[in-house]
């Protein structure tokens, strides 16, 4: 047996109403406006998980920047953390906007909420380039395989053979796997989950918050209006029946020191940038999320076999984050005083000498 700091039931324990977190804030401090999405939408379950994760992890709401593109998913940034600044921008451009925002204020915790259309189609280029820059953003994809806000067209993540609502039209094209692409681009925290598995979603979101670089969390989130029918592989019944967790996930935040014994033969511990831990208890799969080629193999095979594997797919924190690569001053660039962003007049004189 090995000793390590791992969770007992920390992240999973339901918080009682009125209970406060380490900042002395109650859950309601993390809530947002009323959702206007369809009743039963998977996105609303994810919103609840975000609220829970930020609450439990104890993130100060005023230090959070919420960004989104356009689509049903993009609306959700209004439904959580109303005490955080939010920016519902342009379709497909959230990733690039998040790059700019993070550089302006590297102290802000950035969460970007996107959809499969926003990420895998119109914004694919911006998404990949954000990932390869390793911008510290929790980039969440609410993946329902369709364009909900424009009434159910296939998206680029729809599986081959998926049937469009109303029948008849079958998707013939290869789906884009955002997790595989993220790994290819060097992402150091890649996870897949299901909106119907809130326990896993919350643990993965907290892990993403504790990660120092880009964290991509691709969550299958059924569209109850346009993609919840027989023949859809993104429907609630299908996902519920097919979800195959790679491991049982636990999360120990850095501020909760609990020593627990665990069996290294059945549980792997991953240490995150801020000292928090993710525990991965072995289930049916023998899977090592720190092995890049194994991760890509797994995604490749599961795509062919149309398996719905969830959990922490890949983890690596060897790449420095963008703000570190650029060696930015620790303070936010946004609020540096004039003396630090305007060189003295003598500097201008010295430069102009070169042009005489």
């Amino acid at each position, binding site marked *: 047996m090995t000793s390590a700091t791992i969770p007992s039931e920390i992240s999973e324990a339901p918080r009682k109403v009125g209970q406060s977190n380490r900042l002395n804030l109650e859950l309601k401090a993390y809530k947002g406006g009323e959702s206007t999405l369809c009743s039963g939408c998977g996105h609303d379950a994810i919103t609840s998980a975000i609220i829970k994760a930020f609450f439990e992890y104890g993130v100060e*709401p*005023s*230090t959070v*920047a919420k*960004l989104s593109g356009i689509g049903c998913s993009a609306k959700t*940034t*209004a439904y959580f953390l*109303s*005490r*955080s*600044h*939010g*920016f*519902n*921008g*342009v379709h*497909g*451009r959230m990733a*690039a*906007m*998040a*790059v*700019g*925002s*993070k*550089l*302006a*204020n590297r*102290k*802000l915790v950035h969460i970007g909420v996107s959809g499969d259309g926003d990420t895998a189609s119109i914004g694919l*280029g*911006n998404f990949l*380039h954000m990932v390869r*820059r390793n911008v510290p953003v929790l980039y969440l994809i609410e993946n329902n395989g369709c364009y909900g806000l424009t009434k159910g067209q296939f998206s680029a993540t729809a599986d081959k053979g998926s049937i469009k609502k109303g029948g008849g039209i079958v998707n013939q094209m290869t789906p884009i796997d955002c997790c595989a692409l993220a790994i290819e681009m060097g992402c150091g925290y890649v996870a897949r989950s299901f909106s119907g598995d809130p326990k896993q979603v919350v643990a993965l979101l907290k892990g993403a918050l504790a990660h120092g670089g880009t964290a991509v969390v691709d969550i299958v989130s059924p569209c109850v209006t346009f993609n919840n029918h027989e023949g859809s592989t993104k429907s609630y019944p299908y996902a519920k029946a097919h979800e195959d967790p790679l491991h049982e996930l636990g999360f120990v935040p850095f501020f909760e020191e609990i020593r627990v014994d665990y069996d290294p033969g059945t549980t792997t511990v991953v240490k995150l940038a801020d000292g928090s831990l993710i525990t991965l208890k072995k289930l049916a799969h023998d899977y090592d999320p720190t092995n890049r080629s194994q991760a890509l193999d797994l995604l490749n095979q599961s795509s062919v076999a149309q398996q719905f594997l969830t959990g922490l797919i890949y983890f690596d924190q060897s790449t420095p984050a963008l*703000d570190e690569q*650029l*060696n*930015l*001053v*620790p303070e*936010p*660039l*946004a*609020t*540096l005083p*004039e003396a*630090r*962003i*305007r*060189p003295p*007049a003598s*500097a*201008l*004189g010295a*430069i*102009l000498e070169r*042009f*005489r």
Partner: protein
Amino acid sequence: MSIAMEPRTHRGAVGVEASAKPVVNDLVVTVATSNGTGSQSANLILMRAIFGMGIPVSGKNMFPSNIQGLPTWFTVRANAEGWTARRRDADVFVAMNVESVAEDVASLRPGAILVITKSLASYVNRDDLKVHVVPFDELVVPVCKDARLRKMVVNILYVGVLAHLLDIEMDEVKNAIAKQFAKKGSAAKLNTDAAVAGFEWAREHLPKQNQLVLRRTNSTAGQIIIEGNQASALGLMFGGITVLAWYPITPSSSLCEACIDYLEEYRRDPETGKATYAVIQAEDELASIAMVVGAGWAGARAATATAGPGISLMSEIAGLAYFAEIPAVIIDVQRMGPSTGLPTRTCQGDIWKAYNLSHGDCKHPMLLPGNMAECFEFAAESLNLAERLQTLVFVMTDLDLGMNSWMSQPFEPNLKPIDRGKVLSDEDLARVGEFARYKDIDGDGICYRTLPGSKHPNSAYFTRGTGHTEAATYSEKPGDWAGNLDRLTRKFDTARKLLPRPIIKLAKGAKLGIIAFGSSDPAVEEARVLLVAEEGISTDYCRLRALPIGSEVREFIASHAVVYVVEQNRDAQCASILRLECPEQATLIRSILHYNGLPIDARSIVEGITLGEKRSRPS
């Protein structure tokens, strides 16, 4: 494409060939080479040597969209009066390129001096030129042992030959070489030797002409020679830019690259290496403007630089910046034409598009620098205006300003203080209590904003490009929508008062007005003198330095019988905007349009106005 395609004027600023006396300090030298041969260095040395003699100069580079092998021309104009606009006819032509030589020779005005490399001598089929055949390929051999370098070193030989022919002081040539190759001592020596070899050969073999001469004077004392992209880059750096996101595109790339160099040198702590700026080379222009807007939202002073095709890609986010009221700066170094057009030729063809860029109702303030000092000052000030007005601000330069060599007085260091605009701090919020992001408290259309990261519980708001109320909540109500658009119009009217005023120059008894902007300025100034001298036409001149216009421009238009708007595009884009702004005077506004890709010259303006006046005269 050859510059030879342009009609000859047979008349320069001074009638050179008509004069028997030597013309002192007034000439145009054009050099035709093949790009990628290092001729740019030789041409800059030629220009700098003349500048070093105290004679005002300008350098215009007509280069192809190509890395190696296509024709390129460089024109140096030296003019005692300080006229620096392009002049059409070369007085002296150096022909080094087989690709263009036939057209080049045909294009020369009668009496022009032609220096031609020996291998091309058979192309000289005219007897009205003063031809000097120079065996450049033979001369370079003893100077340059390394055969691979000869095609580059051969260029500096013609500088030596011209020094002899035109009385350019060799000491100034050597000074210019030392400056050009300041970091490469061996290259400096090689080039100096070559220049001297060219000079000595010419002294022995070529008769000295006395028609065109250069003589030392002191008209350039204290001045600098700089390109507008470097000036704009300096402006951004001293303007306190904190985030620069860009995508490479001619002719704006050198702006961003210069800015990176300056930032690296002056905005990074020498001890810790920590930077007070971030630069990202984005994946495309969609991303670069998205990064700028994301950064501006979070409180950075953020900018990008691009050209026409980039502007097109930025269109959607320009609308977001306008409607969500995010500070952002785009420097548009304009180039020729739609699509890829002529990427290495100049124009002012993005005015109309940029002014209203995006969908729905959008209009953006734009600054119109007309010289190097303004490229510097306006780039710096654009960051202030973007934050003050909480909107996208354009700075419209062009390839002529951005990539050609311009003389300038050194820039004044006394820029306006850095203005962060109406940003509410936590202390402000604690004092005022309430906060509604889009409420016009001051009646100027500009609302207060808070920055992400503010601690006050009332500071957070939700930014969106969709319809919103004063409190930044979602709204589709007609009243909210229309009210917001009307407030944005008020804000635009406030911008009129904050933007740089026009420069108005009045002439005694003038009935005609000229309106121009940007790189057209030197040609307009020269044309005004020529119009008086040749046609007896006096003109008043209003140089726009920003759009939208303010009251002075309105009054200028209203107080003239006719106003000629000079611009470098086909569709009279600025004139169209002025007609909309001044509908009562719309019929008084005429256009002088120049759109062949070359920088506008004074002669084109003189011809345009003379023709316009003849047409309107009762017969």
